[in-house]
C-alpha cells in the first residue's frame, strides 16, 4: 500500500521537493498505482480546503465589542434617529412599521376589527394627553372606538392635529434640510390622501378604495409620529 514515497507526496504536490527527488518520484508514479491514488486524493483535499465557505458567528458580537472599545451602543442611538434617505422613503417604509394601526382610521364596517392583530404603537407619544384612550394594545378602547366610525375619525383628526402642533412647536430644533424632507413627505401624503378621499366619495362601497384611504391616513399619522419623535429626540 504505502511505500517510501507516500510520505513525500504532499511536498511533491506543493512543489517543495528538490529537483532530483522530484524526478525520481515522477518515475515512481508511473508504475505505483497506490501513490497515484493518494496523490489524486491530496489534490482534492487541497481544492476542498481552498473552497471552504466562511461563516460568521451565531450571535451578533458587535455589542460586546462596542462595549469593550468604549463605543456608544448603536442600538439606542438608532432607535429614534432617522437618516434623510430614511425620511425621504418614509412614504413607503412606514407601511411596514406598524401594520396594526389601521384600526384607528378604518370605518368600522369594513373589516372585522376585533380579529385584527393590534401591534404596539411603534413611536412614543410625544405628549401624555392626545392619544389617551386610543392607545393600541388596549383592545377594549380600540373596539369602543372602532364601533363608532365618527369617533374614530375624530380621534384620528385629534391625533393628527396634536402631532402637527408638536412638530410645529419643535421645528426650530430641527435643521432645515430635515424640516424640508418632512414637509415634502407630508405634502406627498396629503396629496395622496385627498385623492383617496375623492375616490371613496365617488364609490363609497369599494372595499379597496376604503382600505387604501385608511392606509394613506395611517401613513400620515405614522410620519407625524416619527417626526414628533425626532423633535423630542433633539430637544
Amino acid at each position, binding site marked *: 500500500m504505502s511505500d517510501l514515497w507516500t510520505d513525500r507526496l504532499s511536498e511533491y504536490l506543493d512543489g517543495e521537493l528538490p529537483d532530483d527527488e522530484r524526478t525520481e518520484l515522477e518515475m515512481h508514479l508511473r508504475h505505483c498505482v497506490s501513490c497515484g491514488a493518494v496523490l489524486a486524493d491530496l489534490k482534492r483535499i487541497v481544492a476542498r480546503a481552498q473552497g471552504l465557505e466562511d461563516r460568521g*458567528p451565531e450571535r451578533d458580537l458587535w455589542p460586546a465589542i462596542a462595549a469593550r472599545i468604549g463605543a456608544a451602543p448603536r442600538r439606542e442611538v438608532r432607535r429614534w434617529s432617522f437618516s434623510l434617505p430614511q425620511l425621504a422613503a418614509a412614504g413607503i417604509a412606514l407601511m411596514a412599521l406598524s401594520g396594526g394601526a389601521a384600526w384607528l382610521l378604518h370605518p368600522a364596517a369594513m373589516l372585522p376589527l376585533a380579529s385584527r392583530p393590534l401591534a404596539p404603537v411603534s413611536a412614543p407619544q410625544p405628549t401624555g394627553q392626545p392619544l389617551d384612550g386610543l392607545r393600541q394594545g388596549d383592545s377594549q378602547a380600540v373596539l369602543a372606538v372602532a364601533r363608532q366610525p365618527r369617533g374614530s375619525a375624530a380621534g384620528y383628526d385629534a391625533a393628527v392635529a396634536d402631532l402637527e402642533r408638536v412638530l410645529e412647536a419643535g421645528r426650530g430644533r430641527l435643521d432645515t434640510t430635515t424640516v424640508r424632507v418632512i414637509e415634502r413627505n407630508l405634502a406627498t401624503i396629503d396629496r395622496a390622501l385627498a385623492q383617496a378621499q375623492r375616490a371613496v366619495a365617488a364609490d363609497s362601497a369599494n372595499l379597496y378604495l376604503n382600505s387604501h384611504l385608511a392606509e394613506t391616513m395611517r401613513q400620515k399619522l405614522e410620519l407625524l409620529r416619527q417626526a414628533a419623535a425626532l423633535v423630542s429626540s433633539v430637544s
Partner: protein
Amino acid sequence: MTPPGTGATTLQHEPSGRTDPDAVDATLAASGDAHAFERLYRGHLNRVASLVRRMMGDDDADDVIQDVFVRAWQKLGTFRGEAAFGTWLHRLAVNVILGRRETVGIRRKRHVEGDAVLALVPGRRATPEISMDFETAVERLPDGARQVFVLHDVEGYRHEEIARMLGLATGTSKSQLHRARMALRQHLER
C-alpha cells in the same frame, strides 16, 4: 487541479496592486470613529470567525473573535497601509489565536491524544452535507496538524511563515501538513 508549485503555496490575500477598499474606514477608525470600525468588523467578520473556529474549535470561538477585534481597535495606529487591511487583520487574528492557544490548548484532551482521535472522526461518504463533514473533520484533527493544515491549505501561508509563527522547524510543519491531509482522505466522497 492544483499543479505542483502553485495554489496552496501562494498567499491568497496579499494586495494585488489595487486600492484597498478598507483604507478610508481604517483611517477613520484609527482616529476613533467606531462606526467606521463597525463597518470593518462587518466586512471581515465571516473570514475572521471561520479562521478562529477552524484553528480553535467552536468552544471559545466567540470570545476569541471578540478579542481579535478589540486588539485590532487598539492596534489600528500601527496599521500603515503597506498591506491590505484584510491581510493586516488576518495576521493579527493569527497572533491572537496563537497566544490564546497556549493557554487553552493545554487543557485540550485531543492535544495529548493525538492520532487516537483521528480514528474517531466518522467518515461519511457521498452525503449532501459532505462539505460540512469536511469542515467538522478539519476541526477534529489534532491541534498541531489542524493548525498547520488551516494556515497552509485554507489560508495560504507558506511553511516558512507557519514554522515561524508556531515555533516549529519547517520540516515539522511539512510533516504535520501531510499527516493532516492523509487523515482527511477518508472524508472525501468516493
